[in-house]
């Protein structure tokens, strides 16, 4: 357990004097590690605020390279890294080091797959799902259950966003508890097909950082809820009470009661194959 340095006291003063946060929470953040999967529209603001707040070790996993069409919402990247086609994980790390050089960054330019997921995600206290497709969301949930860590999951499309913490505490549900059967490919749309407003990913990604900080600092109340965000609706936010962990869940259920197994899941095939051509499916 490392203590705060003099520089930490200067940098995190506004959190250290905050009633209900203070030195104990700041020390927990410093000694915590979070891995963020996806350095895109959700991952950028999440990483930004986790780094600024002083989470001691941050992992960044993304296989993609920066393009100019990302800059509308992926605020850690810039025109220079887009022109270079720099990997997003590196581009994000470059920006984070300028904000906070005192934290450790693990940069992984790699696509998360069943074969490497455990290796990439092991050893972190918490996982952030900032990805953009259904197969990876199932894979992340299964790995979070296997590793016994909470999964802060964000999603955004168009004007809408969703936020949920899975596998939290002793009876928080996992993604499969809520959605045991994956949607078919035709039912799933992506940001590159349907578009998305940058502030929507920004709002959800920032709130993912908040959930992570609450959990790491011991301030999370632990009840499973789903936050719905709809930028053009009134009210724009709604909080939904969710079910507890399912005894029969193939991933996190109780031994002897589980229905099915996750071992032979072919995530991509199981979720209806590759991301479909949305225009062609007509929705």
């Amino acid at each position, binding site marked *: 357990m490392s203590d705060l340095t003099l520089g930490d006291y200067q940098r995190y003063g506004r959190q250290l004097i905050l009633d209900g946060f203070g030195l104990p929470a700041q020390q927990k953040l410093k000694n915590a590690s979070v891995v963020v999967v*996806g350095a*895109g*529209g*959700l*991952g950028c603001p999440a990483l930004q605020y986790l780094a600024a707040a002083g989470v001691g070790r941050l992992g960044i996993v993304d296989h993609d390279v920066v393009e100019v069409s990302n800059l509308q919402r992926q605020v850690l990247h810039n025109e220079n890294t887009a022109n270079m086609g720099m990997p997003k994980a590196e581009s994000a790390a470059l920006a984070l080091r300028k904000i906070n050089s005192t934290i450790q960054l693990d940069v992984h330019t790699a696509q998360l797959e069943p074969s490497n997921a455990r290796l990439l995600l092991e050893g972190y206290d918490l996982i952030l799902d*900032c*990805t*953009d*497709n*259904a197969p990876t*969301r199932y894979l992340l949930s299964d790995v979070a259950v296997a590793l016994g860590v909470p999964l802060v999951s*964000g*999603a*955004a*499309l*168009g004007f*809408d*966003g*969703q936020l949920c913490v899975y596998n939290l505490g002793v009876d928080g549900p996992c993604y499969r508890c*809520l*959605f*045991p*059967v*994956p*949607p*078919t490919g*035709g*039912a*799933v*749309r*992506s*940001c590159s097909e*349907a578009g*998305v407003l940058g502030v929507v*990913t920004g709002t959800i990604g920032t709130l993912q950082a908040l959930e992570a900080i609450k959990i790491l600092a011991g301030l999370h109340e632990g009840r499973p809820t*789903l936050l*719905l965000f*709809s930028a053009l*609706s009134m009210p724009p936010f*709604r*909080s*939904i*009470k*969710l*079910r507890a962990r399912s005894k029969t869940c193939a991933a996190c259920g109780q031994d002897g009661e589980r229905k099915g197994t996750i071992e032979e899941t072919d995530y991509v095939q199981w979720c209806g194959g590759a991301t479909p051509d949305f225009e062609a499916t*007509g*929705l």
Partner: protein
Amino acid sequence: MSSDALALKVEFTGGLELLFDNKKKYTVSLPRTTDDAPTNLTHLILWLKDNLLKERPELFVEERTVRPGILVLVNETDWELEGEGDYQLKDGDEIIFISTLHGG
């Protein structure tokens, strides 16, 4: 509206509204009983499919329930806590159908 009818608020989000004339909020009126039983959520889902759904029913219904990836809320609570399809509808209930998002 007759006192024999249930007035329900129905809402579609997460892209599901595209199947329902791109309209998010509906008020629907259903009889208190369907097929000689108190009208429940399964009845509502089938009624919505037959009466409000404009296109591609396979993106809303699969067999006698919602397709995988859709979460149903009863008065802002996960329907699993309320008995899922067997939940008996009450006058004034607010039912929300959410398609889970995967983008980021």
